[in-house]
C-alpha cells in the first residue's frame, strides 16, 4: 500500500513555523521601532535609566501651551468637520436635490488632494493683496485659519461615513416617528441622531486623530503664525539637533501618543452601547421631497463648493502664472516662467519620480503583506495571523511624526556599514508601516464578503494554489483590494508628516519639495509645482475612469 509520503502530501505541521517567522518579521517591522522610541525617552545623558527628560519637559511651560493649542485646534476642527459633514450627508442621503452625482464628487475632492496643496491654495486666496482678504479681512494665519483648513480637508471623512449610515437607517423607523406625531426636526433629533451617534463618534475620532497626525497644514500656517502644536513642536525639537533633542522629542512623542490614546478611549466610551440596528443595504431613494426649497439649497451648496473646492485651486493656478509673489494676477502679468522653472528644476522632477516610485512600490508591498495576512486570518482562522493583524494595525493610529522619529532612532545607526537612513528606502519603509493596515482592512472586507465555498469549489475542481488565486480569489476580491491599493497610492502621494523627517537630498518627495519651496517663501514656484501635481492627479483619475468604462464595455461585449 502506498502511504501518504509517497503521494507528496501536504505536511500541515509546517505552517506554524512560517507563521512564527512571519509574526517575528511583522513585530520587527511594525512594532520594534515604536518600542525603541519608548526606550529612548527613559535613557538619561549618562546612558542609564532616568526620568530627566520628563522633568525637563515638565519645567518647560511652553510645552503646556503646545498641548493646549493641539487640543483647542483639533477640537474646533473636529466639531466644524462634523457639522459640515453631517449636514451634507443629510441633504445628500435624504433629499431629492438635483445633480447629486456631481455634488458628491466635488464634496469628496479634498480626499484626493494633499492637504498641503489645499493649504497652499488657500494661502494664495487670502494673500493680503487678494480680493478675498480685502472683502473679509480674514486672517488665515491664526487659530481660526488652522481650524478652517483642518475642517476643509477633513469634513469628507465625516460626510462619507454618515452618508452611508443615513442610507442604512430603515425608513420605517422614521415613518413610525412621523405617525407618532414627530415633526421633521423632532424626528431628526429624537430618531436619526441617536441612531447616528456611534458612527458620528467614530468619524469624529478619525478626524481628531488625523488632525493630530497632520503636519502640512500646521507647518504652512501655524509656524509663520507662531502657533505650535504637538506635531510641529516635535518636528522642531528633532531638527534642532542639540545633545538631547531626540530624547526630548521621544518624551514629547509619548505625550502625543497618550493624547491620541485618551481620545480613542473617549470615543470608544461614547460609542459604547449604541445600537447599530441598521439594514445591510443602502437605500438610495430620497425620503424628503424638497419642492420649492430645492434650488435654494442647491445654490447654497454650490456656493460652498465653489468657495471651498474650486476657487482656491483657480487661485493656485493664477498664482502659479504670476511672476512674482504678491503681484496681482492679470493677463498682462501672466507668464509661464514658474512652470518653466519647475520643469527644469532637478528637485521637482526628482520629487515627482520618487513620489510615483514610492506610491507604486508601497502599494505593491502593502498589498502583498496585507492580502496574505488577511487571507490567513480571515480564511484559515490562523491565530498567528490574527496577532499579526493587530501588530500591523497599531502604527496606523500612531501619529506619523512619532513613527518618523522612531524610524530615525532605530535605523540611523549603520549596520555593518550599511544603512537605509538617508535613502529613499526608509521612506518606503515608513509608508509600508503606515499604510499596510489600509489594505488589510479592505481585504478583510473582501474576504468577509467572499463565500468560502467559492474557493473550496475551485479546490474540489482540482485547482491548486496558483490557479485558485488567479481564476477565483483575485477576480472576486479585486474590487475592494484595488480600491485599497488606490487608497495606499493616494495616501503615499499625499504623505508629508513622516516624509518631512525622513527625506534627504535625492530622496525628496512631492510634498517635501512643496514644503521646502513654501518655507523658503517661494510660493509661486510651489503653486506652479502644485498645479502640475493637480493636473497629473486629474489625468490619473481620468485614466482610471476611462479604464473602468472600457472594461465594462468589453465585458458587456463578451
Amino acid at each position: 500500500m502506498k502511504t501518504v509520503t509517497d503521494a507528496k502530501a501536504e505536511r500541515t505541521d509546517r505552517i506554524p513555523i512560517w507563521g512564527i517567522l512571519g509574526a517575528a518579521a511583522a513585530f520587527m517591522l511594525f512594532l520594534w521601532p515604536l518600542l525603541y522610541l519608548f526606550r529612548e525617552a527613559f535613557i538619561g545623558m549618562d546612558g542609564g535609566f532616568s526620568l530627566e527628560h520628563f522633568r525637563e519637559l515638565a519645567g518647560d511651560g511652553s510645552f503646556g501651551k503646545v498641548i493646549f493649542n493641539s487640543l483647542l485646534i483639533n477640537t474646533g476642527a473636529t466639531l466644524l468637520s462634523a457639522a459640515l459633514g453631517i449636514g451634507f450627508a443629510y441633504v445628500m442621503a435624504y433629499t431629492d436635490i438635483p445633480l447629486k452625482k456631481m455634488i458628491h464628487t466635488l464634496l469628496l475632492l479634498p480626499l484626493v488632494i494633499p492637504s498641503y496643496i489645499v493649504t497652499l491654495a488657500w494661502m494664495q486666496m487670502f494673500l493680503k493683496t487678494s480680493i478675498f482678504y480685502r472683502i473679509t479681512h480674514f486672517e488665515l494665519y491664526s487659530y481660526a485659519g488652522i481650524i478652517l483648513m483642518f475642517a476643509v480637508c477633513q469634513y469628507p471623512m465625516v460626510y462619507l461615513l454618515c452618508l452611508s449610515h443615513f442610507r442604512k437607517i430603515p425608513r420605517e423607523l422614521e415613518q413610525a416617528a412621523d405617525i407618532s406625531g414627530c415633526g421633521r426636526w423632532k424626528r431628526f433629533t429624537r430618531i436619526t441622531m441617536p441612531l447616528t451617534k456611534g458612527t458620528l463618534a467614530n468619524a469624529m475620532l478619525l478626524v481628531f486623530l488625523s488632525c493630530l497626525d497632520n503636519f502640512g497644514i500646521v507647518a504652512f500656517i501655524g509656524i509663520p503664525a507662531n502657533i505650535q502644536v504637538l506635531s510641529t513642536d516635535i518636528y522642531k525639537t528633532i531638527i534642532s539637533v542639540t545633545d538631547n533633542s531626540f530624547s526630548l522629542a521621544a518624551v514629547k512623542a509619548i505625550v502625543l501618543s497618550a493624547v491620541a490614546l485618551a481620545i480613542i478611549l473617549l470615543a470608544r466610551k461614547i460609542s459604547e452601547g449604541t445600537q447599530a440596528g441598521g439594514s445591510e443595504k443602502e437605500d438610495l431613494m430620497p425620503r424628503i421631497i424638497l419642492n420649492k426649497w430645492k434650488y435654494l439649497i442647491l445654490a447654497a451648496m454650490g456656493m460652498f463648493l465653489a468657495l471651498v473646492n474650486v476657487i482656491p485651486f483657480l487661485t493656485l493656478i493664477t498664482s502659479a502664472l504670476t511672476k512674482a509673489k504678491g503681484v496681482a494676477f492679470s493677463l498682462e502679468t501672466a507668464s509661464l516662467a514658474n512652470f518653466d522653472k519647475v520643469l527644469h528644476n532637478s528637485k521637482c522632477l526628482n520629487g515627482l519620480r520618487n513620489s510615483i516610485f514610492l506610491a507604486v512600490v508601497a502599494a505593491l508591498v502593502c498589498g502583498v503583506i496585507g492580502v496574505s495576512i488577511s487571507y490567513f486570518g480571515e480564511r484559515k482562522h490562523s491565530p498567528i495571523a490574527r496577532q499579526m493583524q493587530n501588530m500591523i494595525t497599531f502604527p496606523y493610529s500612531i501619529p506619523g511624526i512619532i513613527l518618523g522619529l522612531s524610524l530615525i532612532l532605530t535605523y540611523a545607526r549603520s549596520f555593518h556599514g550599511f544603512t537605509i537612513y538617508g535613502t529613499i528606502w526608509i521612506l518606503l519603509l515608513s509608508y509600508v508601516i503606515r499604510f499596510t493596515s489600509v489594505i488589510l482592512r479592505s481585504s478583510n472586507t473582501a474576504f468577509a464578503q467572499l463565500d468560502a465555498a467559492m474557493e473550496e469549489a475551485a479546490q474540489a475542481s482540482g485547482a491548486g494554489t496558483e490557479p485558485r488565486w488567479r481564476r477565483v480569489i483575485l477576480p472576486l476580491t479585486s474590487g475592494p483590494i484595488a480600491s485599497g491599493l488606490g487608497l495606499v497610492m493616494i495616501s503615499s502621494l499625499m504623505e508629508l508628516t513622516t516624509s518631512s523627517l525622513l527625506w534627504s537630498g535625492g530622496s525628496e518627495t512631492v510634498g517635501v519639495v512643496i514644503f521646502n519651496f513654501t518655507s523658503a517663501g517661494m510660493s509661486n514656484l510651489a503653486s506652479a509645482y502644485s498645479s502640475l501635481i493637480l493636473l497629473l492627479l486629474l489625468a490619473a483619475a481620468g485614466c482610471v475612469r476611462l479604464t473602468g468604462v472600457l472594461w465594462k464595455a468589453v465585458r458587456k461585449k463578451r
Partner: protein
Amino acid sequence: MSTIAEHLNMEFNGYQALKDVNLEIQKGEFIAILGPSGCGKTTLLRLLAGFLKPTAGRILMDGMVVADSNCMIEPNRRNIGMVFQSYALWPHMTVEQQVRFPMEYSRFSGFRTDRERKERAEELLKLVGMDGLKNRYPSELSGGQKQRVAIARALANEPGLLLMDEPLSNLDAELKIEMRREISRLHKEVGGTILYVTHDQSEALGMADRIVVMSQGRIQQIGTPREIFHKPANAFVAKFVGQSNLIRGQWEENSFICGKGERVDGTGIPESFHKDSLFPVKADHIHLVPAGRSRFTGKIREMEYQGFQMKVIMNMDDGNVVQVLVQPEMDCREGMEYGIAFG
C-alpha cells in the same frame, strides 16, 4: 473508486464532532448520510473532501491513504467532485466556463485538448438540460438552473467520488422533487460513486442504495433504505427515519409488556431497545379497539385530519403518548377512551 474511512475522529476546540466513524463506500454506490443538523454529517463530508484533517483515524481512496492525523492530501489532489449547498458558482464565470474549469485544472482530467473540453462541456450541459444557456452568468440563472450547473461542474471530470452537501435544501418543494429524480437519473446514466449528505429522510430513502444514519458524531446504523426504515437498529433511527412510536414498558425475553399487562411479540427487535425498555412501532401498525379488548388503554388527546386517513394522538393511562393512524370515518372525539391493539 472505493473509499474507506477507518476510526475517524474529529475534534474542534474540545468538541468531539465525529466519534470513531467507520465506513466503506463501494465503487458505483449511491450513499446517503442522514442525520439532524449538528450530527457530524457535514464534518464527515469535509473530511472526505480534504477540507479538514482528522484528529485520529485515516481515509483511504483506492487503497491509498489520503489523510491521517499527521498528513493529508489536499482536495485538489483527490479524485473528487463536489456540489455545495450554496452551489458555489463563481459569479464572474459563464456556465460554460464553470463546467470547463475542472477539466482545465484537475490532474485527473482526461480532457486534454480544447476541443475535447468543449465537447465534454456541451455533452454535460445537455445531460443536465442547460445546453441553451452556456453563456449565461450565475446571476442570470434560477435556483434550479444553478443547481444543474453545479452538478454538471462536479461531474465534469468523471470524479471517482462525487460529494453532495445538502444540494436540494435551497430549492422550493416542487423543484426538490424534480431535482431528486434528476439526480437519480444522472446516477443511473453516468454511474459513478455518490456520497450524498442530507437531513431529509425522504431524499435519503428515495435515492440512496445505502443510508448511513448519524447522530451526535456517531454512526447509528448503515443499511439499505428498507432495512433502515423497517428494522431500525436503535431508538434514534426508529424515531428519526421510521417516525415510529417508542412505547415505554418492560421486556421479558422476547415479549414486550405495556399498559396493564398487554403482551406483544418482540422477536427480532434489536437488543438496544431492550436496554432502553422501549418498543418501536409505526403509527399504521397499530389500531384503536374498544377499551375492553386491550390492556393498553388511554384517552384521545387530539386528532389531525389528513385526508386519506386520520392521525390520532393518545394519552395512554401509563403515561405513554402514542400516535395511531385510523380510517377518517372512525368515531373519534377528544377524551374518548380506546385501547390499542398491535399487529
